[in-house]
């Protein structure tokens, strides 16, 4: 089912999608509609796209301007090319603190999301494969906790971390992120769909231990679902703002979100920071956007499975 979903997005431009009847009438997709409707619909979507793209386009253009041109030239017009100068200034300002923030963001997001995904995978796998006492309770608690919004937990988590002495440390930001009930739910759904019981029984008959079966067969079969969890956990911690704002006081430990908003605030008194905030925003957006869009085949399938079954 997921394979069919992944193939679908091509259907609009090439009338090849199986479930649709192919007919060479006026438009693609086998649905008989007038050319006028097609132009109108495409125009609506194009207009919407303009709205969604404009700020990103502005960000790219603004990043190439000098600090004074940012204010003196029209927003969407290119001026002299200052991008590399800006990146150099970004790299040297305050002893290169920007790259420290970027490194922190990578540490929090990569380590955090990989660990989160493994925890979710193991739990989802156990829920799908085993029947054990407390299973129903665990499922109930996982589902119930989806209604508890993360930002409400931020303040008491901060109080907890202060009591544990973990505020203003890497651990203070890494550990709370590991609790990701939505990921468990997705992993459970994926394990149910993707892992045939017969295969596990065969592995057992071959003498494979339970953990080796999980690592060798379970993780592999669940992989496209796990990419989804990985991406959302990654994005969640890359975008995290309230918790680091509460927990971290040391600039050396801050992620990009906190660092850049700090610059934005400071730019009221230090105008040169304004262009650095712009360039820094671009630098922080580009890698995320590339990864997310490159892997969309996986998480799209994961999302639809999650929303259909969940």
């Amino acid at each position, binding site marked *: 089912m997921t394979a069919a979903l992944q193939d679908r997005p091509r259907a609009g431009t090439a009338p090849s999608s199986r479930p649709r009847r192919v007919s060479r009438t006026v438009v693609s997709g086998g649905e008989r509609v007038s050319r006028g409707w097609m132009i109108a619909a495409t125009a609506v*979507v194009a207009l919407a796209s303009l709205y969604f793209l404009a700020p990103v386009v502005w960000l790219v253009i603004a990043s190439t301007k000098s600090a004074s041109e940012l204010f003196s030239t029209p927003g969407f017009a290119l001026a002299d090319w200052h991008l590399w100068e800006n990146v150099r200034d970004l790299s040297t300002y305050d002893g290169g603190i920007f790259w420290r923030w970027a490194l922190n963001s990578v540490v929090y997001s990569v380590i955090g999301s990989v660990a989160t995904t493994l925890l979710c995978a193991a739990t989802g796998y156990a829920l799908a494969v085993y029947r054990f006492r407390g299973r129903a309770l665990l499922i109930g608690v996982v589902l119930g906790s989806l209604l508890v919004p993360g930002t409400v937990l931020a303040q008491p988590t901060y109080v907890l971390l202060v009591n544990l002495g973990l505020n203003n440390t890497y651990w203070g930001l890494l550990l709370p992120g590991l609790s990701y009930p939505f990921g468990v739910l997705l992993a459970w759904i994926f394990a149910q769909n993707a892992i045939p019981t017969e295969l596990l029984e065969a592995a057992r008959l071959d003498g494979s231990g339970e953990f080796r079966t999980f690592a060798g067969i379970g993780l592999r079969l669940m992989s496209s679902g796990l990419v989804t969890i990985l991406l959302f956990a990654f994005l969640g911690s890359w975008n995290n703002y309230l918790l680091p704002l509460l927990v971290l006081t040391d600039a050396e430990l801050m992620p990009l979100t906190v660092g850049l908003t700090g610059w934005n605030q400071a730019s009221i008194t230090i105008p040169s920071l304004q262009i650095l905030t712009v360039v820094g925003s671009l630098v922080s957006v580009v890698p995320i956007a590339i990864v997310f869009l490159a892997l969309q085949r996986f998480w799209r399938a994961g999302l639809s499975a999650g929303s259909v079954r969940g």
Partner: protein
Amino acid sequence: MAVQTPSTAVRRRALGGGRWVPYAFVTPFVLVFLTFMLAPIVIALVNGLYSSQSSGLGFGGAETVFVGVRNYARAFADADFLASFGRVALYGLVQVPVMMVIAAVLALLFDSALVRARRFFQFAVFLPYAVPGVIAALLWGFFYQPSVSPLVQGLQAIGIDADLLAPGTVLWSVANISIWSNAGINMIILFSALQSLPRDTFEAARLDGAGELRIALNLKLPMIAPAVLLTTLSTVIGTLQLFNEPQVLQSITPNISSDWTPNMAIYAVSTLGRDPHLGSAMAVILGLVTLVVSLVLVRFTNSSSRGGAR
């Protein structure tokens, strides 16, 4: 065992390994969950009942005294805190329907055969989701400041003097940021649900002479009701948790106070106000309000979807 009804639930029972094996799989998650999900909830509940006379943090200190519901009384007597709920309610009443309509219209258009260059336009609509919320707020912040904004300058050029950060408009400027950020992911979820619908139903309706618009509104939309509920629910929850965007915009306009939304009030009280006990009580109130709103929404949708077709 094998004589029982051959449902998957029975089929998928534990075979190999000891009885402890499933627990080994779920223990890491359960530990993290207890520490960073359940414990913060308990801490918020307990912490909210105490107060400290000096500025000491936590509820183990010598100066911490039990005050019963006094923190809650203080929170409810705080007119600004109550006003922040009214503000996000007004915000949500506009932002949620507008975003859901945009997401649904785009998803239906992408699902129809009407739109050309669908992959590109979907990419454009989704791209903002890959921009971290805080960065999106920084970006739009530049669009709202008259000194750099191509938007304000463009409007001025055609004779409209717009102040997007005025007391009356700033709420909608914030709403615009979150629509821009989140319409794409909601569109993708609805689109995935639409793509998984059986096509033959629509073919039959088409043969009966139903137009595309009627098929979209009377057939497709009711069939993806679960996905619509899911996205609406998470949007509503997100609305109540509003923090990142106004917190960032705060540095460029005096019209966003430090307790502009419930989460901002919690943050301000816990950090600048140095009263994490009051902050915890406020977090409990926000959590309960969110829970009640979610449950009412689920109940409302369940009963209205049983009422039959419109």
